[in-house]
C-alpha cells in the first residue's frame, strides 16, 4: 500500500549520507596530531598568507567599550585607542620613558614640583590641524570631568582636586586647572601640589592623550565612537561587537605607517580564534591553554613569541574581614596565611598546569619592574612546615579550622588554578570552597570587602614599583582604590610616601624594596605566579617587538608605524 516516494526518500537519504560522510571525513582529517615531519617535529597546518590589502589582522575577545581616552579603563580599549592617539611621553623598547608628542624629556624643577614640556611642532590631528600646548591643556583637563574614569592621573596637579569636585556638579567638559599652564603654543608647564616622582609615568598612559577640542565639542559623548587623534591610524569603521577597522594615517608625524591598516575582529571563543589563525585569517593570536606546548614542539615553533609580563597573580586575604580566621594582625592568623603559602605547589601550577607560561613568584614585583628584587628566592612549598604552622596556630591538621570561600571570576585559567589550589590545601587539612562570579559582580564584591579570600592579578600601569606597592598596600587606598586586602601598616605607608618625594632613582628604589620586604613578612597574600605574555605571530610580520607593557595581541607601545608584512612584492 505504500506509495513509492522514490525521489523524496532517496533525496533525504542522500542528504543524510553526505552529512555523515562529511563528519567522518572531518573527523579523520582534523586529527592531524599524529603527523610528523622528517625531523620528528609535529606538523601543524598553519597557513601563512598575509592579507591582500596589507592589513594587520588582530582577534579580540571582547568589543572595546570606549575609545575616548578619558574613558579607557580596560586593556582592550587601551590597545585600540593607543593606535589612534599619542601622549606626551612613551616607552622605548627597554621600557624607559622617551618623548613622543614632547620634543624632549621635560625639565623638572629643583623641588620636583614643576615640569616644563616643549612640544614638537610637526604634529597634527588627523583632521589636519596642528597640535599646540592648548590642546594638551584641554585634554588633560578633561580627565577632571565627571565622566572621566581616570581622574586620579591628574590629581597631583595644583588645582586638580578642586576642579574634580566642582565638575561633579557643573558637567564642564574640560574644567580649568590652575596647575596646567600654557606658556606659549609649544610650551606647557605642569605644577604639582607636592613632588611625586611617579607622576611622569602618567603622561605615557593613553588616558592623557591629546584630543582635538573642536571635534569633542561637535560630537559630544559620541567622541568615544568617533575618535580623532594624532596617532598612526584612524578609525574607519566600527561594527559594534563584530569588527573594527583602522586605516593608516599617511601624515603621521613619525612617518607614514607601512601597513594599510589594522583590522580587528571580535571572536569570544578562543578555540574559534585559533582555528581562524590557522586558516590564515589572523596575523597574531593570544596563546591560551593547549597551544604553547604543542606549538613549541612543532614545525611552527618560531611562530611562538613570548616576553616577560609585568603582572603578578595572587590570592589575597581580606585582612579586615570579620569572622575570618585569616584576618587580623594576630600571630596565629599570620601563621595560617603562611601555612597556606607553604602548601601550594606553584611549580606544578606554572610549569605543568599552565604549560610553562608562568613560574613561581618571588615577591610582589615581577622582573622588569624597576625595584624588582632578583635576589630573593621564589616562594616554595614545604608541606611539613605548613602543618607545623597549622598546629601552632591552633588548628592541628586543620581541625576546627572553618571553611573559607575562595572567590574568583570566570575567566580563562582561574577555575583550573583554583581547583588545584583547593586540592593542595586539602592535602594539609585546610578546607576552602570555591565561589565563581563574573567580572562585574566579582569586582564589586572585592571592592566592598565581601570575600575573605579572593583571586586577583595586578598588571602594571607603568613599570615602577610604586604602581604595585602603593595601589595595593597603602592604607589610603583601601577598598576600590586598589588595596582590596585592606592592608595597613604605618611603616609601609611611611616608606611609600617618602619614596614619592625623592628625586634620586636609586634611593627611591631602595625605599620601595624595603617596603616590599616588609609587606611580604606580613603575608597578606597567597603569593602565586609571575608570567610571560605569549602570542603566536605569523612569520611574515616584521618589527612587532613587544615589551612588558604590551598586553598580548594588542602590541601596546610597539612602534606601529614600523610594523610591516613581508609579502612577495
Amino acid at each position: 500500500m505504500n506509495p513509492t516516494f522514490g525521489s523524496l526518500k532517496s533525496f533525504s537519504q542522500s542528504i543524510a549520507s553526505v552529512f555523515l560522510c562529511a563528519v567522518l571525513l572531518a573527523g579523520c582529517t582534523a586529527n592531524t596530531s599524529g603527523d610528523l615531519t622528517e625531523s620528528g617535529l609535529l606538523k601543524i597546518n598553519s597557513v601563512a598568507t598575509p592579507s591582500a590589502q596589507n592589513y594587520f589582522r588582530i582577534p579580540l575577545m571582547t568589543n572595546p567599550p570606549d575609545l575616548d581616552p578619558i574613558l579607557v579603563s580596560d586593556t582592550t580599549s587601551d590597545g585600540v585607542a593607543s593606535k589612534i592617539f599619542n601622549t606626551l611621553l612613551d616607552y622605548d623598547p627597554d621600557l624607559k620613558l622617551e618623548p613622543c608628542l614632547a620634543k624632549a624629556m621635560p625639565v623638572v624643577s629643583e623641588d620636583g614640583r614643576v615640569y616644563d614640556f616643549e612640544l614638537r611642532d610637526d604634529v597634527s590631528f588627523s583632521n589636519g590641524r596642528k597640535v599646540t600646548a592648548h590642546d594638551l591643556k584641554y585634554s588633560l583637563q578633561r580627565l577632571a570631568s565627571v565622566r572621566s574614569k581616570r581622574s586620579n592621573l591628574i590629581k597631583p596637579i595644583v588645582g586638580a582636586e578642586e576642579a574634580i569636585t566642582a565638575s561633579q556638579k557643573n558637567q564642564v567638559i574640560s574644567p580649568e586647572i590652575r596647575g596646567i599652564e600654557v606658556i606659549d603654543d609649544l610650551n606647557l608647564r605642569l605644577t604639582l601640589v607636592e613632588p611625586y616622582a611617579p607622576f611622569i609615568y602618567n603622561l605615557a598612559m593613553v588616558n592623557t592623550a591629546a584630543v582635538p577640542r573642536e571635534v569633542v565639542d561637535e560630537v559630544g559623548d559620541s567622541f568615544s565612537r568617533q575618535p580623532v587623534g594624532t596617532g598612526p591610524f584612524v578609525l574607519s569603521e566600527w561594527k559594534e561587537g563584530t569588527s573594527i577597522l583602522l586605516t593608516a594615517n599617511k601624515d603621521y608625524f613619525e612617518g607614514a605607517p607601512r601597513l594599510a591598516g589594522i583590522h580587528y575582529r571580535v571572536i569570544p571563543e578562543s578555540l574559534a580564534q585559533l582555528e581562524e589563525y590557522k586558516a590564515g585569517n589572523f596575523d597574531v593570536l593570544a596563546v591560551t591553554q593547549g597551544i604553547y606546548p604543542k606549538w613549541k614542539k612543532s614545525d611552527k615553533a618560531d611562530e611562538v613569541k613570548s616576553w616577560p609580563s609585568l603582572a603578578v597573580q595572587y590570592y589575597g586575604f581580606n585582612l579586615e574581614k570579620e569572622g575570618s580566621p585569616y584576618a587580623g594582625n594576630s600571630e596565629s592568623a599570620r601563621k595560617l596565611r603562611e601555612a597556606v603559602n607553604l602548601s601550594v605547589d606553584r611549580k606544578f601550577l606554572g610549569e605543568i598546569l599552565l604549560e610553562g607560561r608562568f613560574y613561581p613568584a618571588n615577591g610582589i614585583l615581577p622582573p622588569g619592574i624597576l625595584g624588582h628584587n632578583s635576589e630573593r628566592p621564589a616562594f616554595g612549598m614545604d608541606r611539613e612546615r605548613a602543618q607545623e604552622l597549622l598546629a601552632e596556630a591552633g588548628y592541628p591538621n586543620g581541625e576546627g579550622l572553618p571553611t573559607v570561600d575562595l572567590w574568583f571570576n570566570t575567566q580563562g585559567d582561574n577555575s583550573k588554578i583554583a581547583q588545584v589550589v583547593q586540592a593542595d590545601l586539602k592535602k594539609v587539612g585546610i578546607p576552602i570552597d570555591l565561589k565563581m562570579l563574573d567580572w562585574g559582580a566579582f569586582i564589586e564584591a572585592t571592592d566592598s570587602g565581601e570575600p575573605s579570600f579572593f583571586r586577583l592579578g595586578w598588571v602594571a600601569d607603568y613599570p615602577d614599583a610604586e604602581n604595585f606597592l602603593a595601589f595595593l598596600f597603602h592604607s589610603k587606598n583601601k577598598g576600590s582604590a586598589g588595596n582590596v586586602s585592606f592592608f595597613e601598616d604605618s611603616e609601609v605607608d611611611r616608606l611609600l610616601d617618602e619614596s614619592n618625594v625623592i628625586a634620586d632613582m636609586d634611593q627611591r628604589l631602595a625605599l620601595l624594596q624595603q617596603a616590599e620586604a616588609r609587606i611580604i613578612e606580613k603575608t597578606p597574600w597567597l603569593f602565586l605566579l609571575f608570567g610571560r605574555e605569549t602570542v603566536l605571530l605569523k612569520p611574515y610580520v616584521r618589527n612587532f617587538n613587544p615589551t612588558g607593557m604590551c598586553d598580548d595581541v594588542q602590541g601596546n607601545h610597539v612602534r606601529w608605524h614600523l610594523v610591516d608584512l613581508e609579502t612577495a612584492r
Partner: protein
Amino acid sequence: MTEVKIGKSPTQMALKRLRKNLLAMGGAAIVLIVFFLAFFPSWVVPHHVDGSGIYTYAEQFRTAEEYQKPPGIPGHPLGTDELGRDVLTRIVYGAGISLRVGLVGTAVALLIGLILGSIAGYRGGRIDALISRLTDTFFAFPSLLLTIGILAVFEKPNEVVIFAALGFVGWPGVARIVRGQVISMRGSEFVLGAKALGQSDFRILIGHLLPNCLGPVVVVSTLMIAGNILAEAGLSFLGIGLPPPIPSWGRMLVDSKEYWVDMPWMGIFPGLAIMFTVLGFNLLGDGLRDAFDPKMKD
C-alpha cells in the same frame, strides 16, 4: 447493542500502549540507568570524586600531556580530563547532579503550576482571567534569559537557588495544561455530584480533579526534566551555574573545551552523557504523550 469493554482504567490502557512503544521503552531504560548511577555511583566506579583526584596523577609527571590521558588506559576507560581526573568517575557522579537539576527544577514548576492552574480552571471568571494573564506574561519571557536575570539578583547563588530559578521558568507550561484539564472536567458528573454532597472545593480538587490530570502532567514533567538538564549545561557554558569542582556535565564541557581539538574525549563523553540522558527523558515523555493521547491510532 454496543459492546462494553470491561476492565482497564485509562491509566492502565495508557501504560499498555506505552509498553508497546519501542522508542519509549528505550527511553525508560536510559532513565533507569541514570537513576541507578545517581543513587549508587560507588557500585560503578571505585574511586570517590573530589578535587584531590588531580594529584594522584600529576605529581609524578612533568608535562600536562602525561596526565591528560586518552581513553583506554588501565583505570581510566574514558580517559582523564584537563586536570587529570578520571572522566568516567566524574560522569557517573555528574548523573546525580543532572537528576537533581531536573527533579528539583521540575518540582518547583509543578508546585506553582499545579496550584495556579487548578485554581484558574476551577474558579473561572475573574480569577481565571488574572491567572491566565499572568501565565501569558511569563510565557512571553525567553526562559534562559529569565533564569539568568533571576540568578543575577542573587550575588552568589547556591545549588538550590540555581535549580529553583531554572525550574521557575517552567510553571506556565504546567499551569496551562492543568487549567485545560480542570476546565474540561469541572462539568463532569462526578464533580457535580460531589458538590451536591457538600464536599469542599479543595477536597474535590485534590481528590478527583488533580489525579485525573496525571497523564498530561507526567508528560510535561518528563519533558521538563530533559529541558532543565540542557538549561543547566547552557548556564554553565555562559559562566553562571554550579562552581567547580562539582562535576556537573555542563561544567565538564566548559572547563575542557580548549583542549577538544587535540583531546576530543574530554568533550565527547560529557556531551554524550547529556545527550543520552536528555534523549531518554524525551523519548519517555514522547511515549507517554502518545500513550495518553486517545487520538493516536496506529
